[in-house]
């Protein structure tokens, strides 16, 4: 099972990274969301995998590690806040700049690139 989950984490990471490398804002946001899934699973799995062992006292005698769970729980919520912020930045950038490229300008315009540096 561990190898399967590790494979999933790796695949999610790869998909997320690929989308992060796209030039438009929306795929980047989607990629970041994907990457956060991978990161959350990764952090969660560092507590090792346990079946039937929710960390609620008195329900089992083989508890899952609650610490990574607590960390990931807040990470999920913060991840949402970050995604939201990024999305709004993307919207704002498009509204102000007129395009949705991550650099704020469409590629292939060599002169404007030099000026903006």
């Amino acid at each position, binding site marked *: *099972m*561990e*190898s399967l*989950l*590790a494979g*999933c984490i*790796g*695949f*999610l*990471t790869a*998909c*997320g*990274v*690929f*989308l992060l*490398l796209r*030039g*438009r804002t*929306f*795929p980047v946001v*989607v990629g970041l*969301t994907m990457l956060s*899934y991978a990161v*959350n699973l*990764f952090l*969660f*799995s560092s*507590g090792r*995998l346990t*079946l039937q*062992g*929710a960390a*609620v*006292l008195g329900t089992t005698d083989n*508890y899952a*590690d*609650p*610490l990574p769970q*607590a960390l*990931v*729980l*807040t990470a*999920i*919520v913060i*991840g*949402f*806040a*970050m995604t*939201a*912020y990024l999305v*709004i*930045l*993307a*919207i*704002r950038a*498009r*509204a*102000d700049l007129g395009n949705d490229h*991550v*650099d704020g300008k469409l590629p292939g315009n060599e002169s404007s690139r030099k000026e903006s540096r």
Partner: protein
Amino acid sequence: MTLLWILLLPLLGTLVPVLTANWRRSACAMATAVPPAFALMILLYYGSAVFAGESLRYTLGWIPLLGLDISIRLDGLAFLFSLLILGIGLLIILYARYYLSEQDSMPRFYAYLMLFMTAMMGIVLSNNVLQLWLFWELTSISSFLLISYWWHKSEARRGARMALTVTGAGGLCLLAALLLLGQITGSYDLDVILASGAVIQQHGWYPLVLVLFLLGCFTKSAQFPFHFWLPNAMAAPTPVSAYLHSATMVKAGIFLLARFYPAMAGTDLWFLLVSMTGLTTLLVGAYLALFKHDLKGLLAYSTISHLGLITLLFGMGTDLAAVAGVFHIINHATFKASLFMAAGIIDHESGSRDMRKLNGLWHFMPITATLAMVAAAAMAGVPLLNGFLSKEMFFVETLQQHLLGSLSWIIPVLATVAGIFSVAYSTRFIHDVFFNGKPKGLTKTPHEPPRYMRMPVEVLVVLCILVGVAPGYIVGDLLHAASFAVLGTEVPEYSLAIWHGFNVALLMSIVALAGGALIYINRKHLFDFQNTLPGVDAITTFESIMKVLVKHCQQLYSWLDNGSLQRYLVFLLMGVVVLAGLPLLQLDTLFGGRPELPVDAVNATGAAMLLISAFATVVFHRQRVVALLMISVVGLMVSIAFTRFSAPDLALTQLSVEVVTIILLMLALFFLPHKTPKQSSPTRVIRDIGLASMVGVVIGSISYAIMTRPFSTISDFFLANSKTGGGGTNVVNVILVDFRGFDTFGEIAVLGIASLGIFKLLTRIPVFKPSSDGEGRPWALERHPVLLATVSQSLLPLALMVSVFIFFRGHNLPGGGFIAGLVTAVALILQYIAHGVEWVKSRMNIEYQRVVAVGLMVALVTGVASWLFNKPFLTSWFDYFDIPLLGKVELASAIAFDAGVYITVVGSTMLILASLGKMTTSHRPVHTESI
């Protein structure tokens, strides 16, 4: 503490000239002199203790963990240098009062000068090498300010830039050397470093450390081949040249050689590098000095030559040579500072520094001429003056050394040659300026300077004579104390006498004097020869080299930073692959020995769905709505994975966040294009796939390696104490609201800040309303479907009830503030979707940014409340109560904290979605008021 004032007084003195800027010039100068004068008095007060061989220390703790302290050490060497810095500094203040004209800003000059004085005092008094380096850099900066004091002159600006570049680059080398020394010895404390000479010299890094260290010293002390900045720094006002470029700053490099002598010296590498650099500098400086027509140029090259002499002495490696080096530091400072000031007087009173114009000044300024002649004679090494004594010791030491094996005899010969040229240029200074006919083409008639302008020169010349006649009485103790501090061991026997009988050293002196006179008489031939050589303009060469360097740096920079974020990300990710991948290569096997769980059909199906939907997200990423649907499947599978692997809290959170995220992204698509144009070239796509796969492989492997390794966790503590200490059985929730409550507080604060940031970003956004979707289809006419409206309305109370239930049971069963908050938010958002912003607003007019604030306040107050009971922030409390009807109920302060979390989550989520959603409704408010 009194010790610290030696350093603090000059620092405070920086302000004095600025504050007294409106006073009369003399008053301003006098006020400026007060702090260094007091510092000098304190220094002299410690004199007897230092002469007795003590080294006084004072430490003020600053960041002890990083080894950063304000640490002062006053030993013989520091005392000697402090005396030079403060003593000559005071004379310079007096001199500058008359040297600067009415147009020059005197307060600015004095402020820079005092800043420089502080920096120098900091170098010599520091007992912490990082602190020392800080002051070292400060001398470079203040020297830059002083050289460019007449910034309207191009040569001053160029000279200042050059000096800053050279000494600044050396300073960086020095920093590297000091950091490495700190690594080797484990301390930045000078005492420790000086005491670990053996450790340092046996360390593998020693050659590197030594070279970096010497680069720092040699650039500062203008050693060949870095000497070129010093003549160009002569564009500074003459008081600066006298103070910085002869007596103090250029000696800072020498000071470091002396200071680190016990730690760094004693190896063959040291002898070779230091002595050969010193010897070359000695010869080059002495030779070139002869051909300079500018008075200050001659003195500058002569200074370079004398600095080379001192360096050579420290490079010889014998104790007596080091003593001679210290002695020559004193002597050179006195005669060279007085010569510079004399040159300044001549320049000031005759309007020129060109020795081809200045002739026969003896008739116009006999007193100054006498003083200058005595000082120049000391420079040439004429008996009965101080220069003779240290030069004699130098000659003796050149005869004693065995640096070059059987070729060692070359060194005394070359030393004599340098002595010959030294006599020749000193003679030229005296004869060309004060005799040799009449002045040619001077703009004004030369005359004696004001009485007090001459006084500093007089003081120094008198010292030259006194030391020359009675060295033992005048500087014996000082020299002994300073030498003791340099060597770190007992000072060998030496004799400070004028007459040592007829010996080879005396012969060398006589040859030098005679040869120098001979060369001067026949100088015409030498000048003719020198004129046939191609001249090298140091400053132009330097600037063209700098230009090339800057150009290449810019090319590299624009290659790295071409404005494309994608490119930066590629670099970062490559770094990830390398940094995270390399350690994996050293791992024999990924599998760590922990048996794997079996794969059943459910897991396999889930994993397959996860992989397929993730892949579909990537494949369909141009069709944004499809990609969004696909990624929601990924999120769903992730939350199922959480359920499967015993994390119900995570599953609930993931599920509710998933809903909110997808709604958010849907809303965002209203404002963004619905399709991504195809723009990446195929090679680029291949590159990205390759890079992404590498990252994925590395991360997946790490994850597998972690999961299959046995481990011990600190969570047993939480499991054991959750019920007894935190009063709850859901350990995850207890960790969040109790054990790690402070973290959670920080996290909800971040959440609140993010939502407020979004709120701010969306106000005053340029309005644009797409009237149709990406493919030109108009929006649906039915804005709020009846079915959805009805269902959502009836769902609301149910959803709220569920969230209250989840909230309260959270302490003992899966649930809690985060999840309940998200459920509430989803229920509320549903109302917005079903009915529109206006409808909700007319029924529930809440400013969500206030909700966020209230939530944070509730959490904060809960935490602060524990102060009332004299407990640390966020200490939790719980007890059980019998309440009629409900039975035994547990009340915990953590519930109040969780309520804060709940309110913040609701407020933030609603603020984010409602702010964005408000803009998508066509019933937009006419003016953009806040919600």
